[in-house]
């Protein structure tokens, strides 16, 4: 049971049942779609980046508890943050899921995903939102759209 509770920590279950920022924003500068063919999970991440700051971040889609909670908590962690910090945070998050080191203090609430390292097949669930975010950031920014 402890392994199970380590994976599905309360904060993860909360976010999977009541995801934050799951909406299509009225306006955004970048977006990307992510798909995990293994489980059929789909996610779209929307970004509103102005002067290098993530002013708004939201998502649409559904997946397993781990992927939904991960993308939900990612949006909370990144709102208002400089784009320049995203790469480092993703690196630390990835290390949390796959490494043996103590979680970096920068991760804050995201440290709740430490249980995933015992379940290597679930790492992709926890990173789907982050990979999609990366793709959104790498896509060419466009005029603010209300499409």
């Amino acid at each position, binding site marked *: 049971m402890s392994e*199970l509770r380590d994976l*599905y920590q309360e904060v993860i279950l909360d976010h999977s049942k009541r995801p934050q920022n799951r909406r299509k924003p009225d306006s955004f500068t970048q977006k990307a779609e992510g798909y995990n063919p293994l*489980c*059929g*999970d789909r996610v779209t991440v929307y970004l509103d980046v102005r002067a290098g700051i993530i002013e708004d971040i939201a998502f649409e889609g559904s997946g*397993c508890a*781990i992927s939904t909670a991960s993308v939900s908590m990612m949006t909370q962690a990144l709102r208002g943050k400089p784009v320049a910090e995203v790469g480092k945070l993703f690196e630390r998050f990835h290390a949390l899921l796959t490494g043996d080191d103590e979680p970096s203090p920068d991760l804050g609430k995201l440290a709740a995903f430490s249980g995933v390292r015992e*379940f290597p097949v*679930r790492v992709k669930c926890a990173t789907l939102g982050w990979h999609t975010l990366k793709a959104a950031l790498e896509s060419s920014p466009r005029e603010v759209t209300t499409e």
Partner: protein
Amino acid sequence: MRRAGDSVLNGLDVTKVRRDFPILRRKVHGKPLVYLDNAATTQKPESVLSALQRYYTAECSNVHRGLHELSVTATASYEGARHKIAEFLHAREAREIVFVRGTTEAINLVAHSYGAGHFEAGDEIVITAMEHHSNIVPWQLLAERSGARLRVAPIDDDGELVLDEYGKLLGPRTRLVSAVHVSNVLGTRNPVKRMIEMAHAKGIPVMLDGAQAVAHERVDVRDLDCDFYAFSSHKMYGPTGIGVLYGKAELLESMPPFQGGGDMIRTVTFEKTTYNDIPFRFEAGTPSIAAAIGFGAATDYLRALGFDRIAKHESDLLHYATRAIAAVPGLRSIGTARDRASVMSFVIDGIHPHDIATVLDLEGIAIRAGHHCSQPLMERFGVPATARASFAFYNTREDVDALVAGLHKVVEVLG
């Protein structure tokens, strides 16, 4: 007088049978293994494992070419396996049995070799809405090469083929039907004999994907009168890496080779090569010899157990399980056809199948979660994925009870 076996379920002594499968003694996450992923692959009995061991320790050599004792023995074992499989399928002749890597390769072989001369722009290939990707993609590739097109016979909400609609698709441009015998997701047993009669009435040959059928029921290719039948060893208690394409001799004879190489030729010069007879024409290169011999041993094992007893026990498990899981809150079965093999797909409201599988795994219970290589079928039922429990004859009602207890825990933790 009390005979041994009187006290056992449906004449099958499951306790004794389980002793034949060494892996069933192991623990997973500290719990006894409850293996319910038999539609993905089945476990292997001791007799199959020892057949592999015997080849590698006493007969290891190449087949068909060597003049020495080991090669003669290995060739006899390999060809002996072909004969056993021909008997298993009730084929007319052993040369109708082509060894391939598995069901997927068998279908690709037909799509290439039979496909080469028989399809042109505007021709049609009929499949069903419940096909595995392996019985969709090879035909799409053939369609791209030839300009032919794919037609898909629909299924109803229970997961049964709509036979009338299937019949309507059989037209003057239909060159082949390729259909699944038993669905890997829904468990649906298709009315294949009727489907074949309907196609043959219009002169259309039929290929069956038997991957999920051969472990559960007696398959008689002569009675079915199918033209091709494809299946894999590893889903019927044999080794991985080997499978069979059955084809009617006259059809196989008419087909060009699939791959070129050793063993499939008669004479080679730089100007011209003549090809070997069937089945060797389709077996280029050194085959998976040990696996073929193990495959033969698996058919021996199944024959000794008997499909009557296997089918009775599995049907008992399916009915018991279908009733038992209905008590799990929010659970919905996907696939409720009247005639089903012991395969059960389901979803639980608000809980992703991958989370179901992870919680069950920690209880030592192995099921499958995902799209089961059947994305169009998932779309048909409006779900991204399902959880699937599939039963073999070595499963017990206790295994089902463990599954149900596990599912209650899933709901408790994630619901």
